[in-house]
């Protein structure tokens, strides 16, 4: 083991050595620089590994042969070693990245880079408060030098502003240090820690030290100077400035907070949260990529500072949590800055150029996921543990604000990612520099490796060892294969997993597994129609299925939440693939993450901080009538309802489903929505009736379900776009299911279960059918179609069967659903929402009939005369679904009888009697086979009659209407199907006013205008920034004093 002092000695020695070289020996100078940085990183990494594995114990490195506090000592512990590694590696990799700039400026610039890295490491290692100041000044000066590596002339002004503020910081720091010394008689941090300090006298001294160190973290709003650096500096340096400097400064602040004692922690919490939220909001308005990243850096460091403020309750896990967030941020931010160097333009949508290299898109996605704290990266595990600790100590406000901040950050990061994937590439692609690309990939690899390490160190299961996830990730490697090969693998994987796992499933799991896993395999059959390699389709698809597979089997809250996040991420990328998917994917991910955070908060509160928390424990919670139980119920229910797109949380759904690719729509509609229902099942099964302020929460759910069913159907009838119509119909259908579940009686649950199966089948089928039509006609607008019945007979059959099943008329399974449903309603005494539900039945018929009527009947359009049937592979699953529907209609008992018994075990009753093929309830009985027979006879009779009456109908040309010599401005408005339900719209249009959309829009707008107003304070004047910094200090001082007295 090489003593850590050699990190410092090597950095300095090499820097001095460079002076001996001639000005033009640039290659040797660079070699020395890289060698020294490599050595420094190696020493740090060696220690990190040794300390983590227990091969070495933390050591104090004494200097000058005297004990501290009489001489300066350094400390090498686990945290120090890892942070020093991050710093060293960032410096080393940046050196390669900065190579052209370094070669241009020569050995002096290299020396500055070496000293910078050395000083940052010193900042982390030192245990002496004045030594901290010296390293800090070195960092300031080196920053002043490295800013000049930029080609941007504005960097000079940015560097000067930085120096001005640094002067103020060092002035406060020095005064603080000397009075701290006077009070303690020592400059050693551990000695200072031994004497706790109050807010007065010596406390003021430590306050000055703390505030100076926090200013170095660029707290919002005293941070205009830092943003200018982020924007103007060379991206290679910005990476160091954000990743290495931010990390080191944060650790320095952490050391002093640890020494100052717990009384000071609220200061870190408040200022940290202020930064996290404030810079998040401001980032919303940024259009420059690097400035946006700057705001994100400040926000993330603020987040970690807030975590520092919680160190009193985190105990052992403090390093795991704070370190997880800090290191992930460092890697991701460095990676993003390095990426920004590959992009020429500075607008956010200029990143579209990255699409030229899928690997870089993957890198971008990974970095975004790291920043937002998604699995499988360390931030995810850290956030999970953090939330539990906060909930366990009743710091719910902090918990809520952190989640809010994370959501805002997800907002602007995912918006940006959407730009990169969907916006037009404006400039000719210049080609990516190989060395810079390699540097980005180093960060990418490091991020995934850290994800593995953190997962392994977690008390919870490591996600990167979960088989389904590994299987999904394997498709990343398999991307070069043709799509059909990958599709076979994917289907085999799904079926194989089901076959392997199903013996262990209870009936509830079984139903969902059949729908999600086997159902997923059936839909994937449709994917065979895609040619080529279809890059970027299989990894997210399989990630979604991996999440679903894990969700079904989840035993603990962690497993459930991790699976939930995984399926959310996978489906986000899938939705984003849609042609116009960008805005919808964004609102999908925001609602989903919002929902996921509600679930996280719910689980954290439920567990009261104790992990692992088995899902069954929810029941104990409800039975013990813990005061927090109804809140847990609300949080979880809201979280699940974002996925089922219940009314109020539905606005993401229509666009996301309608714009998705042909085979993706059925996945996200038929399958993904069921994840929400699964969650609600678990929730209601365990917690049952919960009362909040005297209101039974399940009744609220009943209302939400009924309203979703009613309004969803109403909105569907006014759609012209066939896929949108189906999407709105999903809102309605899932409303039924929610309604049934929330009735909290046996038949209601059975009904919901039936909806799970039915809705999967007919919605998948209809989406595939409409998708097939779209493939041929290239439009989704129904009034542009007509008469396709003869050209696409198979598709017609599946649409016909689909809408019969769905509208709940006999003889298909939809009727069974209705029948059960009326039984359920009769068993409950909520009559008012019942009326709504009753009304949505006929409404559903209104919109469904349009699918047949407008698309397949009527006259064929001229341009459609040569159309063929939908592609073979799109028809195959549809036909499977038709068969399944028929089978399910005749034999519902096959699937439902077992579930019925299972549900009975919860309610302890048996309202349905299964005898042969008939089912009997207290209100009557249902014999599917008999009904099928009756209906068959009626149908054939009516059809024959119609055919006979229709034999001499006269054909006219479309749009052939004379408007007294006037050409209609929009000829399609004369189509019979245009605005078909106009009279209804007149009557009931007020019910479908986009109030919810307006509501969420107003929230977004107000955030944006706040951001726009606030950022005017960043005038760009360095002096104004200095005044703001001073104001920040004085205001914090006054508030802190006020709070203390």
């Amino acid at each position: 083991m090489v003593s850590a002092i050699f990190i410092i000695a090597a950095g300095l020695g090499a820097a001095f050595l460079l002076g001996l070289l001639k000005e033009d020996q640039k290659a040797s100078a660079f070699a020395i620089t890289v060698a020294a940085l490599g050595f420094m990183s190696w020493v740090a990494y060696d220690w990190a590994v040794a300390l983590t594995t227990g091969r070495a114990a933390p050591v104090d490195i004494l200097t000058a042969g005297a004990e501290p506090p009489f001489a300066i000592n350094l400390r090498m512990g686990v945290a120090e070693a890892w942070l020093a590694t991050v710093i060293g590696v960032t410096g080393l990799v940046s050196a390669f990245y900065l190579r052209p700039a370094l070669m241009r400026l020569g050995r002096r610039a290299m020396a500055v880079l070496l000293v910078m890295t050395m000083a940052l490491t010193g900042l982390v290692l030192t245990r002496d408060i004045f030594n901290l100041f010296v390293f800090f000044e070195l960092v300031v000066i080196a920053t002043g030098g490295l800013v000049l590596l930029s080609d941007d002339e504005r960097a000079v002004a940015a560097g000067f502003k930085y120096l001005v503020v640094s002067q103020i910081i060092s002035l406060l720091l020095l005064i603080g240090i000397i009075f701290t010394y006077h009070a303690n008689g020592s400059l050693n941090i551990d000695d200072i820690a031994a004497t706790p300090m109050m807010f007065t006298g010596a406390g003021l001294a430590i306050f000055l030290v703390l505030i100076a160190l926090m200013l170095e973290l660029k707290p919002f709003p005293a941070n205009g100077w830092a943003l200018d650096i982020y924007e103007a500096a060379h991206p290679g340096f910005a990476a160091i400035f954000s990743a290495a400097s931010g990390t080191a400064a944060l650790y320095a602040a952490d050391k002093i907070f640890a020494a100052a004692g717990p009384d000071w922690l609220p200061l870190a919490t408040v200022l940290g949260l202020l930064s996290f939220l404030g810079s998040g909001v401001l980032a919303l308005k940024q259009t420059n990529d690097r400035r946006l990243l700057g705001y994100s850096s400040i926000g993330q460091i603020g987040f970690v500072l807030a975590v520092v403020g919680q160190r009193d309750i985190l105990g052992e896990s403090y390093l795991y949590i704070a370190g997880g967030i800090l290191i992930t941020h460092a890697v991701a931010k460095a990676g993003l800055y390095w990426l920004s160097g590959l992009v020429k333009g500075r607008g956010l949508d200029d990143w579209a150029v990255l699409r030229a290299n899928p690997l870089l898109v993957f890198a971008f996605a990974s970095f975004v996921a790291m920043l937002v704290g998604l699995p499988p990266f360390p931030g995810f595990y850290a956030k999970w543990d953090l939330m539990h600790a906060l909930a366990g100590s009743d710091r719910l406000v902090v918990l809520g604000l952190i989640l809010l901040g994370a959501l805002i950050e997800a907002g602007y990061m995912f918006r940006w990612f959407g730009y990169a994937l969907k916006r037009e590439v404006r400039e000719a692609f210049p080609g990516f520099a190989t060395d810079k690309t390699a540097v980005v990939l180093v960060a990418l690899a490091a991020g995934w490796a850290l994800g593995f390490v953190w997962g392994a160190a977690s008390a919870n299961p490591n996600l990167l060892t979960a088989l389904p996830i590994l299987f999904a990730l394997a498709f990343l490697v398999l991307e070069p294969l043709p799509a059909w090969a990958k599709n076979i693998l994917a289907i085999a994987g799904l079926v194989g997993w089901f076959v392997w796992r199903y013996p262990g499933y209870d009936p509830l799991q079984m139903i969902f597994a059949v729908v999600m896993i086997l159902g997923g395999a059936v839909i994937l059959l449709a994917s065979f129609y895609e040619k080529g390699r279809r890059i970027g389709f299989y990894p997210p698809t399989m990630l979604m299925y991996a999440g679903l597979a894990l969700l079904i089997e989840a035993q603990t809250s962690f497993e459930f939440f991790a699976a939930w996040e995984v399926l959310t991420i996978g489906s986000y990328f899938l939705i984003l693939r849609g042609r116009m998917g960008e805005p919808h994917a964004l609102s999908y991910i925001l609602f989903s993450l919002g929902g996921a955070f509600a679930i996280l908060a719910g689980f954290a509160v439920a567990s009261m901080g104790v992990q692992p928390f088995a899902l069954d424990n929810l029941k104990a919670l409800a039975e013990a009538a813990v005061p927090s139980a109804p809140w847990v119920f609300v949080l979880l229910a809201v979280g699940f309802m974002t996925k089922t797109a219940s009314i109020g949380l539905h606005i993401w759904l229509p666009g996301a489903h309608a714009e998705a690719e042909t085979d993706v729509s059925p996945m996200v509609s038929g399958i993904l929505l069921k994840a929400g229902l699964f969650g609600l099942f678990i929730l209601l099964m365990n917690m049952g009736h919960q009362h909040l302020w005297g209101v039974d929460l399940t009744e609220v759910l009943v209302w939400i379900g009924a309203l979703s069913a009613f309004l969803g159907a109403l909105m569907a009838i006014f759609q012209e776009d066939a896929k949108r119509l189906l999407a709105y119909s999903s809102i309605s259908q899932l409303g039924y299911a929610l309604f049934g579940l929330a009735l909290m009686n046996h038949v209601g649950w059975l009904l919901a279960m039936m909806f799970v199966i039915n809705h999967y089948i007919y919605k998948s089928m209809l989406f595939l059918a409409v998708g097939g039509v779209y493939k041929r006609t290239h439009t989704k607008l129904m009034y542009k179609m007509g008469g396709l019945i003869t050209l696409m007979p198979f598709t017609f059959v599946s649409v016909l069967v689909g809408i019969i099943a769905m509208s709940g008329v006999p003889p298909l399974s939809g009727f069974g659903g209705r029948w059960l449903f009326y039984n359920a309603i009769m068993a409950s005494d909520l009559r008012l929402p019942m009326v709504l539900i009753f009304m949505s039945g006929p409404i559903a018929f209104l919109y469904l009939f349009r699918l047949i009527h407008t698309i397949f009947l009527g006259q064929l359009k001229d341009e459609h005369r040569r159309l063929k049937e939908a592609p073979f592979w799109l028809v195959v699953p549809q036909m499977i679904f038709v068969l399944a529907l028929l089978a399910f209609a005749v034999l519902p008992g096959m699937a439902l009888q077992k579930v019925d018994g299972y549900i009975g075990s919860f309610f302890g009753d048996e309202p349905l009697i299964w005898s042969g093929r008939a089912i009997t309830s207290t209100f009557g009985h249902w014999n599917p086979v008999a009904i099928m027979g009756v209906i068959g006879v009626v149908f054939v009779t009516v059809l024959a009659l119609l055919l006979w009456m229709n034999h001499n109908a006269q054909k006219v040309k479309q749009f052939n209407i004379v408007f007294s010599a006037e050409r209609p401005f929009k000829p399609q408005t004369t189509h019979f199907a245009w605005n078909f339900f106009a009279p209804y719209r007149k009557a009931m249009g007020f019910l479908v006013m986009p109030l919810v959309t307006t509501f969420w829009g107003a929230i977004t707008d107000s955030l944006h205008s706040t951001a726009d107003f606030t950022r005017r304070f960043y005038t760009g004047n360095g002096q104004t920034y200095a005044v703001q910094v001073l104001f920040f200090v004085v205001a914090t001082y006054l508030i802190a004093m006020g709070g203390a007295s």
Partner: protein
Amino acid sequence: MLPTIAMATGFALILMGLYGALTHRNILRMILGFTIASTGVNVVLVSVGYMPGRTAPIMDSAVPVADAAARVIDPVPQALVLTAIVIGLGVTALMLAYAYRLFRIRHSLDISKFTELKW
């Protein structure tokens, strides 16, 4: 008495220097303000280490080694100030170099003219 006077002077210098740095638009005058402020900081630092009735921390014939602990003042702040002074010079030199670069860019020393980066 003596350290209080010195400390008051130091603090006054800091505030005056900062005032200059915050109000003068001329970049050179801002830097000048900071040098005055850092002189003030140095004065405060030294005055914190002063102890009445004692001598400089150098052992010679007047202050034998054995008596040192009872006769000399606290040497630590002085050592810190030495470092601070040199660092201060470094930062000042750097800021001056920056000032010159800025002047070359816009032919002006007015800080309010360098605001292309904002918001």
